[in-house]
């Protein structure tokens, strides 16, 4: 909640105060993560803290004043920020397995309650891959194909909420597809693959629709819209490629290595 309100402040009040607040929260999150990782050293492989730190670093870049200014004046800048906030930073954060560390760090009773919360019906519906994809990719359709984007350029509260939505829905989608953290009632890998397939297609389609029909309307020149749409297409490709690799890492780990007959009879 503190994060959300600080982000709102960052757009409504003095930008430097708001940016400073966001940076303090990011550093605090990183410190908490690294401290927990240090305490439970053998829980995670060493590349996970690297991934989480990279995710935080990408958020730093996305909220850095030069990029904020670029994003405010140029649709391409917005797209770069969107790719960082909604796709690349969540990959880093979620592949860092912060949930695993969180469940280890809190008292057992609290950890049980957290897991029980994940198993309740409303939360289960929310974190299902299909709803995660609808919130993440569906949210982009609403943003770019309706006047919402133009509105967000003039209304600071909507603008701030949009950033929060990008990060949260990006993290939710990444986690629902390839999150390493344990969760009760996880949908099957086949279903997650099907969602990943359609969501990747939907993202590529949106970028091409924006390019071919000139969305979002009335905020930038045609050439800027087309450049931003191409950034979205190729940038999204790179992020989805990483997500697909993360997914198949889980897929292939689940099955035992295909062994030769000799070692089975042994």
């Amino acid at each position, binding site marked *: 909640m503190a994060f959300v309100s600080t982000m709102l402040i960052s757009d409504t009040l003095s930008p430097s105060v708001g940016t400073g607040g966001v940076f303090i929260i990011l550093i605090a999150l990183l410190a908490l993560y690294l401290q927990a990782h240090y305490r439970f050293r053998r829980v995670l492989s060493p590349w996970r803290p690297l991934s989480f730190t990279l995710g935080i670093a990408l958020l730093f870049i996305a909220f850095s004043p030069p990029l904020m200014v670029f994003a405010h004046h140029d649709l391409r800048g917005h797209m770069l920020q969107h790719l960082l906030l909604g796709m690349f930073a969540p990959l880093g954060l979620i592949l860092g397995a912060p949930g695993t560390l969180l469940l280890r760090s809190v008292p057992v009773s609290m950890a049980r309650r957290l897991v029980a919360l994940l198993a309740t019906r409303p939360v289960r519906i929310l974190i299902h891959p299909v709803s995660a994809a609808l919130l993440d990719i569906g949210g982009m359709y609403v943003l770019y194909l309706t006047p919402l984007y133009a509105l967000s350029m003039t209304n600071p509260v909507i603008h701030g909420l949009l950033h929060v939505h990008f990060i949260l829905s990006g993290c939710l989608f990444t986690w629902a597809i390839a999150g390493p953290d344990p969760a009760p009632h996880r949908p099957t890998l086949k279903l997650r693959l099907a969602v990943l397939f359609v969501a990747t297609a*939907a993202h590529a389609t949106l970028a091409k629709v924006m*390019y*071919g029909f000139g969305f979002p309307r009335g905020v930038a020149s045609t050439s800027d819209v087309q450049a931003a749409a191409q950034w979205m297409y190729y940038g999204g490709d790179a992020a989805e490629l990483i997500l697909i690799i993360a997914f198949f890492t889980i897929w292939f780990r689940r099955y*035992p290595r295909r*062994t030769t007959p000799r070692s089975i009879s042994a």
Partner: protein
Amino acid sequence: MYVQETIMSSSSTTSATSDLRRSLIAAVLIGVGFMAALDEIIFHQLLAWHHFVEWGTPAFALFSDGLLHSAELILLVFGFFMLADLRACKLFSCAYGWAGLLLGMGGFQLFDGIVDHKILRLHQVRYVDDLWRYDLGWNAAGLFMLGIGVWLLRRARSRHGVR
């Protein structure tokens, strides 16, 4: 767990030393993804012959293009994981791998030339008057790679003693 291992081991014993069918499938998937990437890099970006999207292309054509693109990405990664898995178990057949790679590349080229360019009309090879020459060249290249793939597959079969 045990059931899975037994099934997998029985499929590998049929070919004695390598899993030919999986070697072929993994390589076909990589071939398709490789050709799609080459198309994107050479014809879209470097030469800029292809257009990203035609202004006003019907949304259904764009969505089918998106589905194909998504499938290419997923199958490419899946192919590489399959290949790594086969190699780790020393079940990969190189001869079948080369055959699969060429079959996948040629198959994609021909599919792109006929379905994407002509049926869905997403974009053309090049925006010139004598387009038919380019279409002919494009699809001939696809057929040529497919032909090499078939020839390699026959050779691989005889090498492995498969009829």
